């Protein structure tokens, strides 16, 4: 019987970008989440290449509501930073940004920080971009080791990147970086868009898969469960088959949820509850 634990479901705050951090945390508590994956973006968490604010205050707010932040996700698609940066100043800023993210993750007591490969330029040799990305991820893995954090890398959709967009390129990056603090996560949207399955990822990475963005899609979209075309029960069955007991980040990004995110989060967790004991 397909089974998931409540603590595995990690609520996220991307679709709360029109609301305050307090509003998001109150909603998570009320709806029944125990775990959150904290996205660092306005207006909730300030993280940049110079510094970050206010780890102690944020930690207190999370704890007061009986929640636990297990994963930190720096905004790494729309902000002015990327792992595949090319110009020296952009590389420097991007590295500092992600390194600050690792430090913030550590201060908040998270286990993991999410990363992707970055994307590079469309009019350059893919290998060049791949190499820069590998260099930065290696350096960040070292910072992660110093701070007791494990980086988990997701793949991107081919519209977003030419570096890591499928299980094959993820494996290549994983092998090149080769650090105990550099692991893999599945994003069900990128996985499905690439035409891949959980079998493909688990057969390649096994226990090195330590986190997931586990959302509905058709296959594009980062949707609330029920709004896409995937079968929640079959997806959970696949997790059970590979004894995956890690977190399932609810990375909901579709604009249709921004007006009333809490309403949709409640729908989402009700669908997960059908598979809880």
């Amino acid at each position, binding site marked *: 019987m397909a089974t998931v634990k409540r603590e595995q479901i990690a609520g996220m705050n991307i679709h709360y970008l029109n609301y305050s951090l307090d*509003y998001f945390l109150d909603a998570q508590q009320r709806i029944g989440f125990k775990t959150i994956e904290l996205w660092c973006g306005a207006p909730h968490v300030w993280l940049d290449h110079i510094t970050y604010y206010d780890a102690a205050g944020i930690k207190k707010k999370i704890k007061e509501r009986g929640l636990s932040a297990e994963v930190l996700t720096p905004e790494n698609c729309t*902000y002015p930073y990327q792992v595949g940066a090319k110009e020296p100043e952009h590389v420097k800023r991007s590295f500092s940004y992600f390194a600050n993210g690792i430090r913030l993750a550590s201060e908040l007591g998270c286990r993991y920080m999410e990363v992707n490969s970055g994307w590079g*330029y469309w009019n350059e040799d893919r290998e060049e971009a791949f190499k820069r990305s590998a260099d930065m991820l290696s350096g960040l893995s070292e910072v992660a080791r110093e701070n007791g954090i494990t980086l988990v890398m997701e793949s991107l959709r081919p519209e977003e990147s030419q570096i890591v967009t499928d299980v094959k390129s993820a494996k290549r990056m994983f092998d090149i970086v080769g650090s105990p603090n550099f692991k893999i996560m599945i994003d069900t949207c990128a996985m499905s868009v690439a035409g891949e399955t959980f079998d493909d990822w688990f057969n390649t990475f096994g226990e090195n898969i330590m986190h997931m963005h586990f959302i509905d899609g058709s296959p594009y979209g980062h949707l609330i469960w029920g709004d896409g075309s995937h079968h929640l029960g079959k997806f959970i069955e696949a997790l059970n088959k590979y004894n995956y007991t890690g977190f399932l980040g609810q990375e909901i990004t579709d604009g249709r949820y921004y007006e009333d995110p809490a309403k949709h989060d409640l729908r989402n967790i009700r669908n997960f509850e059908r598979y809880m004991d």
Partner: protein
Amino acid sequence: MPRLLRQQVAGMNIHYIYYSIDYFLDAQQKAGFKTVELVGQAPHFLMDYTGFQDTKKVREKAESRGLKIGVFTPECAAYHYLLCSPDPGFHKRSMEYFKQGIKACAGLGSKIMLTNCIGGTWDEEPGRTYERAVKSLKELGDAAKESGVTVAVETVRPEESKIITTVGGLKKLYDDVSHPNVKAALDTVAMGVAGETPRQWFETFGKDIIHCHFVDGRPYGHLIWGDGLYPLDRYIKVLNDYGYEGYLSQEITDGRYFDKPAEADARNFKAFEPYFVN
């Protein structure tokens, strides 16, 4: 026949995020643009609340291709810098960022910096967001005056902000700010989404419209002309009727153009060709 000057139509770099600034500028020159509105966004122009990259080099890059940077827009919707943020720290750093933007604008040789009133949260009373917008724009107006720049404020879609989404809302703000260095910008998408027309805007603001994001829409979009449903000739005629001589920036944001932005821009510039008198 509606008419325009070639240099009024300004290319923009938003849809070039997967390409370098050199690629962007080459593409503008090739498409026929004489003017660009540069957005302070990575990887083209790096800035933050403490400073910005060398403007002289960027200006030279543009000028060597026969391009003038007519307007500078620090990215003001997608990053953590939001003018109306209720969090004191977010707001303070955003204000510092926009003040850096004003200096960068002057350094790039532009007289106009564009912004909007995004950043208020939905769980805050909109009146308080509005008060913050007025206060912030007065402060930016003073900074702009010192640098010989004028801040142009656009409206946005109701999905982006609870305030300043209509021509009436912007007029009230304009009157409450009442600063010679804070003026109005017409964004044709926000305009269309609000159910408004260019004529209404010019009737309301007249010469105080100092800038336009003049793109096709359905009305949502930010599209290449021809991909939306707006009547280009009628809209240009309204500009002519009111003697508008400012820029018509091509703020193309739709993801469909990110793969081949240069192709899209060449097609877009061509749509304006019949109206050029020079």
